[in-house]
């Protein structure tokens, strides 16, 4: 079979995903959309009635909302890792993952960005958080980690969107060919009238390289900044120097898991087995294993530090974390993040896609729980014993959390039907 047909074949294979949606798809979309609507409803209710409808209280001022924020930002990371870092390292297997991974990054960030707003006591005053010239002549406090968040996350979102879009431009041009009428014009519009001339390719190539270069440090920086929300405080259990690397590793860990969770069904349903092979999955699994080991190491170090410091506050916090009111959560976390992934040392399991899928689900849960444990247990037992307290999420918080998944999957499902789910151009290039 000669090349040009192969090329055409690739296009058809990938673009076939865009054909009329089936019932299953619509059902899935319906479910996630409803979940998202519940989020909006509950949020409205919370704004009207007051923050008290959430379970958070004194002393635990942050709960599920911030947990979700950290979780989703974490999810975003592996997207960038796969698309940017692996691009710089010229890792071939990237080609099969980068598009869905980038999409995941963008959507995860959209969701993550929602939570700082949801958790605000006075959401309707959110604009106080942005440094813009007002008649008040008052700016924001750049010494606050929350402002760093504002900058880090919005930068990350912008760059990811640009990177995602740039990758799409030539594919838009291809999709344009397969469309008719208005759709043709729309895809054309997004393709910017790309034709593939020398000048376009030459600059495009460099652009992509530089965007990758710009995105790469973000993988490290953004989650470091997020981790500093905690590390910069003085709360025992938060105030640790290892938080930045610890969180970055965790982010990539959870993100990679999420990639697997998304790509496995996608590959099955859209019959892309030819382009996403078991070798690819094995490489991803290796990343998963590696980051899992780093995360586990961090857990150990945390406890080591607390024990070695001899600081009564630190020691109590970690005793409480492991054996206190939230001990169940803690051990769930240990099992999902440290023990279960060890199985990936077995090659056959690394190559067993079904197993990977199940494992990835465990890791997703485990990483969410990890953030919960870190945030809640540390706040529940800080310095003044009189002020110790506990926290149980309220139904509203649970609903909003589910809603956030609703939003994420809604976006992702729409992506499947509207955009080339794999980077056609790159696949061609590597044929």
């Amino acid at each position, binding site marked *: 079979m000669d090349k040009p047909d192969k090329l055409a074949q690739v296009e058809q294979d990938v673009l076939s995903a865009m054909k009329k949606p089936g019932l299953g798809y619509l059902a899935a979309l319906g479910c996630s959309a409803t979940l998202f609507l519940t989020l909006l409803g509950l949020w409205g209710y919370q704004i009207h009635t007051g923050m*008290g409808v959430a379970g958070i209280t004194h002393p635990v001022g942050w709960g599920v909302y911030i947990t979700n924020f950290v979780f989703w930002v974490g999810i975003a990371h592996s997207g960038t890792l796969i698309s940017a870092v692996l691009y710089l390292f010229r890792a071939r297997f990237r080609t099969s993952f980068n598009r869905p991974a980038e999409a995941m990054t963008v959507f995860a960030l959209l969701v993550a960005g929602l939570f700082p707003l949801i958790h*605000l*006591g006075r959401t309707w005053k959110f604009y106080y958080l942005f440094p813009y010239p007002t008649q008040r002549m008052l700016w924001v406090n750049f010494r606050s980690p929350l402002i760093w968040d504002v900058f880090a996350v919005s930068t990350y979102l912008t760059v990811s969107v640009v990177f995602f879009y740039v990758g799409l431009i030539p594919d838009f041009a291809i999709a344009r060919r397969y469309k008719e009428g208005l759709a043709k014009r729309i895809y054309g519009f997004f393709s910017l009238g790309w034709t593939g001339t020398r000048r376009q390719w030459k600059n495009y190539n460099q652009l992509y390289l530089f965007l990758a270069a710009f995105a790469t440090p973000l993988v490290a920086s953004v989650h470091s900044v997020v981790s500093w929300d905690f590390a910069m405080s003085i709360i025992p259990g938060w105030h640790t120097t290892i938080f930045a690397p610890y969180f970055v590793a965790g982010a990539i860990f959870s993100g990679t898991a999420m990639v697997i969770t998304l790509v496995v069904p996608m590959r099955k349903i859209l019959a892309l087995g030819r382009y996403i092979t078991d070798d690819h999955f094995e490489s991803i699994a290796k990343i998963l294993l590696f980051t899992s080991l780093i995360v586990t190491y961090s857990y150990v170090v945390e406890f080591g530090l607390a024990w070695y410091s001899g600081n009564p506050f630190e020691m109590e916090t970690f005793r409480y974390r492991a054996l206190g009111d939230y001990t169940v959560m803690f051990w769930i976390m240990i099992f999902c993040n440290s023990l279960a992934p060890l199985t990936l040392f077995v090659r056959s399991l690394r190559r067993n896609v079904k197993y990977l899928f199940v494992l990835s689900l465990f890791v997703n849960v485990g990483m969410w729980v990890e953030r919960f444990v870190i945030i809640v247990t540390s706040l529940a037992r800080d310095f003044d014993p*009189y002020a110790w307290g506990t926290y149980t999420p309220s139904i509203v918080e649970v609903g909003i959390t589910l809603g956030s998944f609703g939003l994420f999957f809604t976006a992702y499902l729409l992506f499947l039907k509207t955009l080339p789910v794999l980077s056609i151009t790159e696949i061609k290039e590597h044929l």
Partner: protein
Amino acid sequence: MKRRDFLRVLGILSGSTLLSSCGSRKTKDFVSSVLPPEEGVIPGEAYFSPSTCAECPAGCGLSVKRREGWPIKLEGVPGHPINDGGLCIRGQSSLTRLYHPKRVEAPMLRNGDGKFQAVSWEKALSLVSESLAGSRDAGRKNLFLSGRTTGSLSLLIDAFCGKLGVERLPEFEVYSHSAVAEANGLLFGERDIPHYRIENADFLLTVGADILATHVSPVSYTRKLSRARIRGDFRWIHAEPHLSLTGVNADRRFVVFPGREAVLLAYLLRQVLERGPRRHGLPREAVNALPRFSVENASEKTGIPAEELAELSNRVTKARFPLVIAGGISTSHRRGLEVAVLAGMIQWVTGQIPGLVDFARNEKYGGTGTFRDMEALSARLSRGEAGVLFLSRTNPVFSLPAGFAFRENVRKAKLSVAFGDLLDETIKEADLILPLSHSLESWGDVEPRRGVVSLVKPALASLHDTLSEGDMLLRLMGAVSGEGPATGYREYLFAEWTKRFGEKGKDALLRDGFVEESLPEKRVTLNGGKASAFLKETAAEGGEPKAPVLVLAPSLRTFDGRSRGLPLLSEVPDPLTTISYGRWLSVSPGTAKALGVKDREEATVSSGDWSQVLPMKIQPGLAEGVFVAGRDFVDSPPLRTEERTGEATWYLEGIRIEKSGKVAAIPVLSGSPSQQGRGLIPDPSHKDERHHHGKESLYPEHEHKEYRWAMAIDLALCNGCSACVAACYIENNVPVVGKKDHLKGREMSWLRIEPFYGEAGNVDFLPMLCQQCHSAPCETVCPVYAAYHNPEGLNVQVYNRCVGTRYCSNNCPYKVRRFNWFWHLWKKPLDRMHNPDLEVRAAGVMEKCTFCVQRIRAAKDRAKDDSRKVRDGEVTTACAQSCPTGAITFGNLLDTESKVYRLAHLTRAYRVFEGLGTNPSVYYLGGAKGGPEREGHG
């Protein structure tokens, strides 16, 4: 925009409506009144007027802070002979009684189907006068029962009863202290409670008397005690069967089972007789009649270790001015009278009368009756002797044992007329309710202590259709005699005052709010005959109650239960258990283990056919086999009445406990009874360890120009009475959120009393408020500068800038920041209480203690008017102002002359968690309670 409107509504609610320039256009607050406001009143400026607290019989002087005519805060009057500036938690909350949403707003008459319906005063009064006459003709007796009444009102009642042929019954007080009065009558012919001059004593032994919280005149005693402690060379021992706030604050506390106190006092009396200080002797037969105890068997009987007992007797005998106060539970049981007598005799022998025990200025409990009197009354009612029964400011139906059947018998009166402001158990039984004005709405005076007359002056016109008791009686007299009210009560009073003090005195009273007459010293002599006769027929032993005992302790927050229903008092937690809402039964850890009950597990406590379900709270420091419940927690318990004194026992003996296994939902605000060795209140021996902390910082200290506000809190003086907490609530418009949120840990108090228990069951209280750190963790993390540090060293929270990330609260090591989880709406007319100098915080906003920045602003404003700096002592916070012990000092740390500067530089001064380098502005003065050698304070 919906939000805006909501804020606006809150704005209107928040009391700054009248004439304040800071309302929105919607509020009609820019008004041309018809007449100019009264002299000396400047709209927008606070002004004070004197009055007297009526929340308990102590009669503390009030200075009522008013804005635009509305009382917004109550403060003690500095220099007042009773409370000298201090005010207790109940006094602070008295304002919520004035504005209570459930006050009786008009005369109420019970109609046919037993429902109350409002009637006019004319109708009500005429009805009363008719039935007065009617029942007189029917040969029934008209009776007048009131709570303890002093001053002109008492005279008026006598006049009233005289004129209308009404029999005035002995006043009813749950805490009549009649055993002590009886004893003094027996020994010295003075049937009353003397005035104890604690401040002049160098040794104090209190037996059962809860002098800090509820005994006779707590604020007065607390003040005196502080003076003695500050002076130094003072030792205070307390003996009690249960665990009271007073007990935990004594230098040493002994657990003595009810009845055994007599042994202790008999032993001490003999010690004093043999080893002095001995000014007067006792008649020989008295000495012989006095039982002999060796240290060993005295200690074996009292349960006080022998060496401790010896040490105690040494202290008594070595002391130059020993003072013994017996009272409360220790004088209200079978041997109560004996305990009181022995105490009196010790005072006699040591010759501290009238030096420390002053009968000239006695506390005027002479006219107060006992439970026996009430038993008699109930009997008379049941025989249907009563025509019209007046019940004024008293709640016997709640307080008396069910056995008295008072509830049923009240109905047997032809017409029962109750005077009161809130619907308590007794008023609900009455046929006719005549609503009383709050003391802040009425004229009057009280004489809580002989020769001390305190003014009651209206701070505002009556909110509702109510009358003061004086006016009511005068109008009744008028109605009966037919020629209408002779004069108003005001005129009556003015006449009385001029008669008693002359014009000058009257003006002084109206100006200062009190008059203190100079009285001749009163010398009393022991009636040796009676004394020895009494000793002969008693034998300091036997008659102890059967364990387990349920002690019904008077309640710091509601006294004998009369202050139940004041919202603020349930919001502020009990300092010992930190339980805010609900009732509970304290049980010792040992007993709890024996019974196998969990903390807060519900149990049925029963005695005879009486029983009640109460949650159990495990209470360190409590003796085995002793249970404690607040007097206000139990409904008509089967109390026994003592034959000799007529006083009711304060405990139920041989009670039974059946646990239910069900854990009750009562909010315990403290996360841990122990401080987990974290040195919030450091062990004095670790002084140096405290001091090398918290100095190092990367950055230079930011400098303060004129002021650097700071606070010093003397933990050796603080007794956990929580008056400061209540004061803070009212001064700062802190919302009362209720039980539901308390269970979630969402109480809003800016200032809390943290009790920390030691191994020995000893308690230290740590008032925790915003520490106003100079390197505040909360400030750095606020993204919008809502929390920042101002040039005067305040850690400011700008409410309208706050977006509610709650990061500051998370990052506060002291956890003193409070988040508004909901919109708090004050039930009308409680909103009148709002301090217009602060906004009422919106939902989603973080709030906290600001060192009463509004008071600082006002002081600076005044200072600026006559271009000077604020003087030391010119501005103080609400908590410091109210503190009865004077433990809190507020001032400018840059002023090296200031008191706070001196205190902050004492070697026992330290700051909580100094190791964190937060550099707080609140200095705590450590050192054990009245620890032997303490540096001076005042």
